[in-house]
């Protein structure tokens, strides 16, 4: 009986190792003959940088105003998020409360743009949406703290606006963030 069980186990092991699903053969060849060619068969489109941004074009009344905006912006927090998440943690909620307080006092003349960002993992279309949900979570928290929703706009940059590019967990944590930018 014992020997039958033993040979059965051995048979089972051999069956499972011998009949494991075969992965399709992946043959990867790095093509080294890549050369950059400066050809101009198509007309080059005028750089988008020549387009004006209405926000930046608006006239600032005095240099003091601009100085104040920069000084206040430096006091605004950066809100960080966990891997693949867009919910606000209690620690981050405190930072948002402080930002809302600023928004109601010294920054009451300004609007704010919330910029959502992600770490380097995943395709950028999904990351743009994730960054936006992060910005939206911060917006909802600011509105709950009494900031007028019409003062808040949002944008996402996905993973294309990193503050660091090292492939380390510290850098990834720094990129999973929402930034505050003031607008006049």
């Amino acid at each position, binding site marked *: 009986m014992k020997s*039958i069980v033993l*040979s*059965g186990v051995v*048979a089972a092991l*051999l*069956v499972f190792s011998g*009949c494991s699903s*075969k*992965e*399709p*053969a*992946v*043959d*990867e*060849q*790095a*093509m080294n*003959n*890549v*050369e*950059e*060619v*400066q*050809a101009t*068969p*198509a*007309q*080059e*489109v*005028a*750089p*988008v*940088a*020549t*387009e004006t*941004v*209405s*926000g930046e074009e608006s006239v600032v009344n005095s240099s003091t105003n601009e100085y104040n905006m920069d000084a206040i912006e430096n006091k605004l927090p950066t809100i960080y998020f966990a891997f*693949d998440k867009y919910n606000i943690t209690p620690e981050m909620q405190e930072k948002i409360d402080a930002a809302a307080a600023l928004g109601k006092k010294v920054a009451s003349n300004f609007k704010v743009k919330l910029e959502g960002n992600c770490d380097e*993992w*995943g*395709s*950028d*279309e*999904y990351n*743009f*949406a*994730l960054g*936006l949900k992060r*910005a*939206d979570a911060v917006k909802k928290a600011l509105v709950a703290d009494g900031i007028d929703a019409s003062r808040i*706009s*949002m*944008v*996402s*940059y996905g993973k*294309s606006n990193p503050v660091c590019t090292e*492939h380390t*967990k510290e850098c*990834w944590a720094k990129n999973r963030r929402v930034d505050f930018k003031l607008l006049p």
Partner: protein
Amino acid sequence: MKIFFLLFLYLNIVYAGDATIEVIKKAESLPTIAVEDASINYNDTFKLRFFKSLVADLNVLSLFNVDRHHREVPYNDSDVLVENKDMQYVVRYKLFEDDNGAMNLQMKLLEHDNVVFSKNYRVNNKNIYMFVSHAIAYDINNYMGADSVEWMKRKVIFARVIAPKQSEIIISDYTLSYQHAIIKGGFNLFPKWANRSQTAFYYTSLDSVTPTLKYVDIKTASVKSIISSDGMMVCSDVSDDGNTLLLTMAKDGQPDIYTYNIKTHKYRRETTYKGIDVNGQFMNKNTIAFISSRLGYPNVFMKKLSTNEVEQVVYYGNSNVSCSANGQYIVYEARESSNAFSANTFNLHLVSIKTDAIRRLTATGVNEFPRFSKDGDAIIFIKNYKGQSSIGIIRLNHNKNYLFPLKSGRIQSMDW
């Protein structure tokens, strides 16, 4: 009983070995081909560059064992070179410059010393020589009766991030040998061909206050704004007739998929889930595949337009973040690790909605942003590994992958 078990073991060992043997046999049985250079103009560097491009293209066809020796011979010699006399096929070509300065090429394909196919090519500018080599490979592929490789002749358009909030949009060939920055300066992403003939494209501009979808006519170099949306604006796909776009827009910070008619300028919301819905891809005129986090994690779904019928497509994995569709087939990007603290692996998988078959297409590294070619023969994708960004091509029917590295910058998104 013991005899039964021994017989059982023996049979399993014998049959377990068969699949591997079959693959090796197939590789060894490919016909051999050599390339003979009969060029009479151009310097040695350029001649060698063209030769290497043609050899690489013939290799990608996956129909031949390609001999890589560069050998020169007069075009009208009746016999192939003695070194090539055992080759099943020989491609002989002659590059020459005509009186207008244009690059001309005469080509003939010999099978055991008999000319079986010949063709002439001409381009005004020798700097786009690689498109001639792609055309030669395409024509030889057609002559051999193999599945179409029309994608080889098509242009790829991609966004390259060169610094935070700075990018370029570049048009290239599939090997990245040819590159032309069509949009420079500013922060412009997600380019998408507007038509099959590749004479126009859409892209997202993030330079103005609101993300804006723009349309570029390549021939006239004109740019026009199509539609803006707070928060996010991406053109994920264009219908075959070019009249309907699948957009991801985010009114009030809520990313959803919309259809947009370019003639009526009207859009219609297609998804209503409160989380993330992105990356709509036409499967046919009335059905789309897309990525949604409605199950608590990103996954692949399909939906009939103008209805509420949503169906889950993939039942494996816990994070499937990008997809592309070609008829019944969907290729998607699966995160195969959930680590916030070390490098993650993303691999591409192919699924059919008609069968239960799933096939893993890549094995290692970070493989993102898959896109089917129009003819369904190949998938292009972005591979990022150790700071090097590359375009990858998967030949689905040949089970082969090829990588073409980008010298600098990171490929953010692309289309072909």
